[in-house]
């Protein structure tokens, strides 16, 4: 192997790794706040990417209708759970968030969608659509069972993944899509060529890592979100609105997922079910980071990306096998290092 190939593989690995890092961060974020292991994270990626790609061709993606549908269900749930104490303010707030927001989004999308819509508008629309879906997903699927065990939440997450992936096929079809690049700029350094796209990937990843780290470590809201994770009841007793915390976490996670998707869809063709595998690799990074540490997750994600790049060069057939088996020794070390606390499970 010569240096050029080595550098090339490293670059490839780091670019993919940065995406995994973003997803890993979102997973850590959601787990830390809601204890949900967010299997549908991959769907946020594909929804973001393919909604953006469809908008770029002037079509209206089905995701926006899904957002409206989920908003209606979320509104109905809000009314149902508040039926004993329906107040006008509460209903108005719920209607604004769950009905006016997605319906407005739908109207705007239909109005502006066209082959000549500026790229920035398409990106914004794709992001907002996925953000709405993420928000409503928490409200519908997880908020009613927020107090249950990690296991029940995990199985529910798997259910959401199945449903969303199936819907993905309905919205985007079985054919893969590719979106237009964000920028055609490129920098050449030695034998390597850095496209504007990959630079954007690096920049955004670093920005998110630093941002989340600061947010959770140093702001009051961030600390409130973490308190929710440790003890829901305790957090409520000191005045933290735990359901709001969960919604914020899902909102952030879905937007991060959508951004990752928009970043990679110009680089590789995405299919409706690609997200699952991409999400799982973010997952491996998140688990190596112990589902708690942001910097560790980012480093692990880069490692996963590099291992993947090298194994696809040397043993392309066994790329996935290698990447997924990588997790086992890590899990064992994690379990051994974890304090022997007694778990009371039901």
């Amino acid at each position, binding site marked *: 192997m010569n240096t050029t190939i080595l550098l090339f593989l490293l670059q490839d690995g780091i670019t993919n790794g940065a995406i995994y890092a973003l997803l890993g961060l979102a997973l850590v974020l959601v787990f830390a706040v809601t204890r949900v292991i967010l299997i549908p994270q991959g769907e946020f990626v594909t929804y973001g990417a393919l909604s953006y790609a469809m908008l770029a061709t002037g079509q209206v993606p089905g995701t926006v209708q899904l957002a409206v549908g989920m908003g209606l269900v979320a509104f109905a749930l809000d009314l149902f759970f508040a039926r004993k104490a329906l107040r006008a303010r509460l209903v108005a707030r719920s209607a604004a968030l769950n009905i006016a927001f997605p319906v407005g989004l739908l109207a705007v999308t239909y109005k502006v969608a066209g082959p000549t819509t500026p790229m920035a508008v398409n990106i914004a629309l794709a992001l907002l659509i996925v953000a709405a879906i993420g928000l409503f997903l928490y409200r519908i699927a997880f908020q009613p069972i927020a107090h249950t065990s*990690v296991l029940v939440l995990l199985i529910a997450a*798997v*259910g959401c993944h199945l*449903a969303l992936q199936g819907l993905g096929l309905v919205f985007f079809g079985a054919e893969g899509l590719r979106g237009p690049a964000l920028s055609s700029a490129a920098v050449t350094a030695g034998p390597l060529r850095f496209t504007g796209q990959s630079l954007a990937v690096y920049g955004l990843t670093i920005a998110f890592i630093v941002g989340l780290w600061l947010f959770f470590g140093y702001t009051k809201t961030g600390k409130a979100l973490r308190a929710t994770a440790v003890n829901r009841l305790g957090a409520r007793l000191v005045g933290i609105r735990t359901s709001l915390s969960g919604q914020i976490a899902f909102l952030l996670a879905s937007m991060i997922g959508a951004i990752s998707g928009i970043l990679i869809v110009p680089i590789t063709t995405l299919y409706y079910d690609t997200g699952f595998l991409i999400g799982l690799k973010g997952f491996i990074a998140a*688990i190596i980071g112990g589902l708690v540490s942001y910097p560790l997750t980012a480093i692990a994600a880069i490692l996963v990306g590099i291992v993947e790049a090298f194994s696809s060069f040397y043993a392309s057939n066994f790329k996935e*096998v290698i990447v997924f*088996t990588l997790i086992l020794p890590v899990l064992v070390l994690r379990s051994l290092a974890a304090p022997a606390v007694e778990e009371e*499970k039901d």
Partner: protein
Amino acid sequence: MTQRLPLIIFALVMAVIPFVPGVPPFWIVLLDNIGLAALVAMGLVLLTGVGGLTSFGQAAFCGFGAYTTAVLTTAYGLSPWLTLPASLLVSGIAAVLLGLVTVRLSGHYLPLGTIAWGIGLFYLFSKLEFLGRNDGISGIPPLSIGSYKMLSPDAIYYAIWIAVLISALLTMNLLDSRTGRAIRALRRGHVAAEAFGVQTPRAKLLVFIYAAVLAGLSGWLYAHFQRAANPTPFGAQAGIEYLFIAVVGGAGYVWGAVLGAGIVVILKEVLQSYLPYIFGGQSQLETIVFGILLVLLLQLAPTGVWPWLMSRLPLKPGRKTPDTSLKLPARAQAGPTSSVLLHIEKARKQFGGVTAVNDVSFDVNAREIVALIGPNGAGKSTTFNLITGVLTATSGKISVQGKEVENAPPQEVVKLGVSRTFQHVKLVPDMTVLENVAIGAHLRGSSGAVSSMLRLDRADEAGLLAEAARQIERVGLSDQIDQLAGSLSLGQQRIVEIARALCVDPMLLLLDEPAAGLRHMEKQRLAALLRQLRDGGMSVLLVEHDMGFVMDLADRIVVLDFGTKIAEGTPAAIKTNPDVIKAYLGAAA
């Protein structure tokens, strides 16, 4: 016999179905698929529902079973019957290797780990040359008896359902045994089970292997049913579906697996055939509905359909009362070598910078009731955990009858004749009082998993249950013997814990706040029982906050404050000790 009757009726109904005129052949195919899924789900019931180990990777073990027979029959021309043990063996060995890694994982790492190796194995199946890569292996011979080849779905139907019924029977036998109780205790954490000698890692590995072998059996049948094997049915999606089946049916119930398999397979079939008519040709709609149903189910009925159904049926399983005349041999005892039973010398436990137990020394003599008291956070429960091996001491020496414990695990400490109860009750709430107490006698039985499945353990089992029943009678809970432990009041649950500890036939009984939650009369009865035990030759070390109870009962009292021993003496001396008064009431101004 009454418990067997429904099983026999079910077996007869299943046997007759193919002969009923007018049953479409397609129904038989569905029933075949239900049986295959039920086998895998039954393993998951034991693994996840009973043992608390969630696995998303069971489909991979089906793959091991199916590919083993596929390779051996097509490439080497072996008879399918010869490959059955091979298939089970390969699944079992794979389970041992994966299990050694997996069962060590704690909490949510475990299900995540199973997802990871489930996907890894799927890719391995689809990339290996000798497994035919993505195309798989076709041309697998059918099962045959003599010259009769089981080619049609209704021929293999019997093979599948006989396998299901036998597996169900063996699984139920296993659950209703010494090993089964150990497995059922796993879900509630390992501390309590280990305190009575259960080797929890081994029990976990056992259920893991058992579940894998059932999945391997299903895979073997599947390969000869489809006469082909390819990677798709052994992927992550299938693994998720098996877990779904177990949850729908009611994880934790053997028949829930069969019911769940029925519901899911039929539902999937209906969705696949009717949804396209309603929504016009869109594929994969069934996964959408599936996912939504799964989320709905978890919100509405997290325990599954089977328990819901059973609670509506008037049947109540009749339980045999154990024959208390059977006597277990007394535990082999070293005999009193000295009057000092428990000797603690400068025991120390640090958690990071906090010293929970600070060089505490005291003794418990034979035939003595010693109370360990002190304000909250004084280190009393930590001392208990050091003695019983739940925690390892940072430094110091603890010996029982002159034998140094030296950081032995709880399973070894209990063998020395030290048994305990817990401050926070650790019973299995969905097991009866009798079954819970019988866990205490775990080390006094010897039957393993295989003899339990084949019902060769009955003599051993009767002895254990008799001992449990006798101890329950001794603590005065005979009326509650068949109730679920979770349905008792907290005070009664503490008494059940004492009965469980007595089943060990201990020399030293450690009781952590036994009187908390008891009424006055119950406390008096408890005190009388403890005195009677002492007079019978047992020693008791107890932590208790009820000073009236302690002063009245204890021969000697040890007082801890902030991890340090501040006083030791008779109740009368302790009552007037100025340091003790200061610790409890604060310094006089």
